[in-house]
């Protein structure tokens, strides 16, 4: 079978699958939504950027939000949840549980929140590619 035909069959198979699969996969694992759509380069760059940002945030002793006592904590928690399985793995391993009052730790907390928000943008982008709104 020619290479073009193989690609067409693979693309048809991807298009027949559940329409929200890239969105959910991209949310759970950074870059996975693009990998499912065979956008290997884009997926790899997104995964590297988001995972590095999350890991650097933890390395700076940033905090993973766990409670929802006030509006700022709720917003921080929503941002953290955007990282999907990274957030769950961090919580399970007990990372980011201590609250340090240092400037670098505060930057780390922001890095973690922004990594989650960027992951949501990446997952929505995968969904847009899946639905044909973007090439």
């Amino acid at each position, binding site marked *: 079978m020619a290479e073009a035909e193989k690609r067409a069959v693979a693309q048809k198979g991807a298009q027949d699958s559940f329409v929200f699969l890239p969105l959910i996969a991209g949310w759970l694992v950074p870059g996975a939504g693009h990998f499912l759509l065979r956008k290997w380069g884009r997926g790899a760059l997104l995964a590297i950027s988001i995972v590095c940002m999350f890991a650097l945030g933890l390395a*700076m002793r940033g905090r993973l939000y766990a409670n929802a006592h006030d509006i700022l904590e709720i917003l921080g928690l929503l941002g953290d949840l955007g990282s999907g399985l990274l957030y769950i793995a961090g919580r399970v391993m007990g990372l980011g549980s201590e609250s340090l009052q240092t400037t670098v730790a505060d930057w780390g907390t922001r890095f973690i929140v922004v990594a989650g928000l960027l992951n949501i943008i990446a997952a929505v982008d995968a969904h847009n590619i899946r639905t044909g709104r973007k090439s």
Partner: protein
Amino acid sequence: MFTPSHFTAVLLFSLFASTVFGITQRETPPRMFRYGLYCFVLFVGSAIVLSWVMFLIAR
């Protein structure tokens, strides 16, 4: 513990955020690269300008 300087933190933040913005907000690879570079320059440039403004206000 990783303790970057303020400027290193700005560079790292800008690099990763610009990469995601470039890939997700444009359609073709050349336009993605140009938009990512544009975002990076704006992130870093605005941090430098605001730093000088705050320095001058504090004097």
